[in-house]
């Protein structure tokens, strides 16, 4: 059967089309869906697109920022108020991938992809899910955990600006420069109060089937200073809760082995290699 393409003017219409057709896939940047189509993935029989311009809008009001799921990495990079996310977006693919790859698509990219999602996790992002009959908000963490079976369509993600310019940090470890995919990535939001971490958020990419929060690390950082002594207990639990894959880029052993090294470098702001 030839592939059908449905172009929808609203996200509701798109969500309805997705919920009624098991072979329907939502096309955002194309890095996942078009590749599957090109490679003869017969599970895809319908491509659903949305032309709703709100889908790719970036809106900021005060500390809260809403990013349309259809916003591309290139749009993120062009948006001055999202400067804290520029180091993340710049490490997604090459320029041509960044002009297509979307924020929403990154939430569904299989490991070791999903570095942007890891960054959003560390920023306590929530997602707005569009169903056939309406929208609802959910924490990103919940959305990621159920991404294999969720029928909804991510309309946007919302997040707070980091507490201070230096409070948000991101590292992506890859074998190839400038475009390599992740050995692992680490994102951290580290608000300081009186020189001590308070309410730290740390997230990993490529350390589990989906990007995950490093909650043991977050707990261990609470009230600590970001120096060698202060982070020691956090490093000791760095690998807690992780379940990395062995793939062509690195083995699970290697990912676990170097995780604490890269976490330390991030927390201490040490230079990368």
């Amino acid at each position: 059967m030839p592939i059908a393409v449905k172009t929808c003017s609203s996200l509701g219409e798109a969500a309805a089309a997705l919920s009624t057709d098991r072979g329907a896939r939502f096309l955002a940047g194309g890095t996942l869906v078009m590749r599957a189509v090109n490679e003869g993935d017969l599970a895809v029989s319908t491509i659903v697109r949305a032309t709703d311009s709100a889908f790719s809008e970036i809106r900021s009001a005060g500390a809260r920022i809403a990013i349309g799921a259809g916003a591309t990495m290139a749009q993120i990079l062009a948006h001055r108020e999202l400067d804290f996310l520029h180091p993340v977006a710049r490490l997604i693919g090459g320029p041509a991938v960044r002009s297509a790859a979307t924020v929403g698509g990154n939430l569904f990219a299989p490991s070791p992809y999903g570095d942007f999602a890891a960054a959003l996790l560390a920023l306590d992002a929530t997602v707005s899910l569009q169903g056939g009959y309406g929208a609802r908000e959910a924490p990103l963490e919940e959305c990621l955990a159920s991404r294999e079976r969720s029928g909804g369509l991510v309309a946007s993600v919302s997040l707070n600006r980091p507490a201070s310019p230096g409070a948000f940090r991101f590292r992506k470890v890859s074998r190839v420069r400038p475009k390599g995919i992740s050995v692992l990535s680490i994102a951290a939001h580290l608000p300081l109060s009186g020189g001590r971490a308070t309410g730290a958020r740390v997230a990993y990419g490529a350390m589990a089937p989906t990007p995950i929060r490093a909650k043991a690390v977050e707990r261990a950082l609470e009230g600590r200073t970001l120096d060698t002594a202060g982070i020691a207990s956090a490093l000791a639990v760095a690998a807690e809760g992780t379940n990395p894959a062995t793939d062509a880029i690195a083995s699970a052993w290697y990912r676990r082995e170097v995780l604490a090294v890269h976490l330390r470098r991030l927390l201490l702001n040490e230079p990368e290699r």
Partner: protein
Amino acid sequence: MAKHRGRGMAAINYPIGMNLGGDPSQALVHSNPSGKFTVALSSIDLGQGMKSVTRQICAETLGVPVEDVYVDTADSDTGPHCMGSFASRGTHRVGNAVMAAAREARGVMMEAAAEELEVNASDLETDGRGNIHVKGAPHRSIAVKDVAIAAQFKQGKTISGRGIFLVPLSEVDPETGEMSPATCYAHACLVAEIEVDDETGEVAMVRMDSAYELGRALNPKLVEQQLVGGAWMGVSHALYETPEPYYPDPSHGPRDFNEYVMPGPGDICPHDIAVLERPAPDGPFGGKGPGEMCANPVLPAVANAIFNAIGVRINDLPITPEKVLRALKAQGGARPQARR
């Protein structure tokens, strides 16, 4: 955390052409009525510059400007037999065949010119700019174009030539391995400087210095292309790529260029190259073939540099961060050797 720099070197040689002979290539050269030449080959240009180097060889041999020669590699109906482009045989084998064909064509061209100028062919020479003149008397000259017209329309001669180069068969002795595996060899020595991160096992290239001897460099820019690109591939073989990352376990093979890791443009390092030319007695104008050997010294030079930096020997390719890290842990940490 510590980063350790180290230097290592390696020296190699490389056989030119298919092992054991039985290795022929043919070429046809012919002129159109305006004195422009076509070289017909069935040899393959896969980026190494087959069309370009044989074009220069043909022009040099004919004694005409390179612009007056065009090489066609496309077609089994018009290009005579060639074994193919592999085993560093292209420049050497095909080059020799083109030389032979061009020599024969030149013979006809000079006889036709001699007839027009009413002299002996042996008294004539080409000026490399499209003219043929009497030795020592440049004013007694005729353009190659006019020779071609005369040969075609007046004298009834075909300015054309056939060439074959065959390295004859050589047997291998079953008991001793005695054989004639190649007719000439290229050589190289390369120094690699690297930096190892002893906490992650990551190895970064810092610089390379090398000397390559490859017979006469028939076109220095084509040589540079091979050496620069080949050394990059050597780095890639040394540190990055394999379709079986956990060989001999065949699982987790890469499926795309994201998973098949090779150094990106951000991973390359300065590479200073010296080219030495010891002409091959049997090569076309002394040429050998730099296309394959250029990558080979990089692999061991990098491995040796890693030893120099951290004191571990990695005997398995590719030398991934994981292999380095495992070796470091087994050794109990980096043991930098004397700086070189």
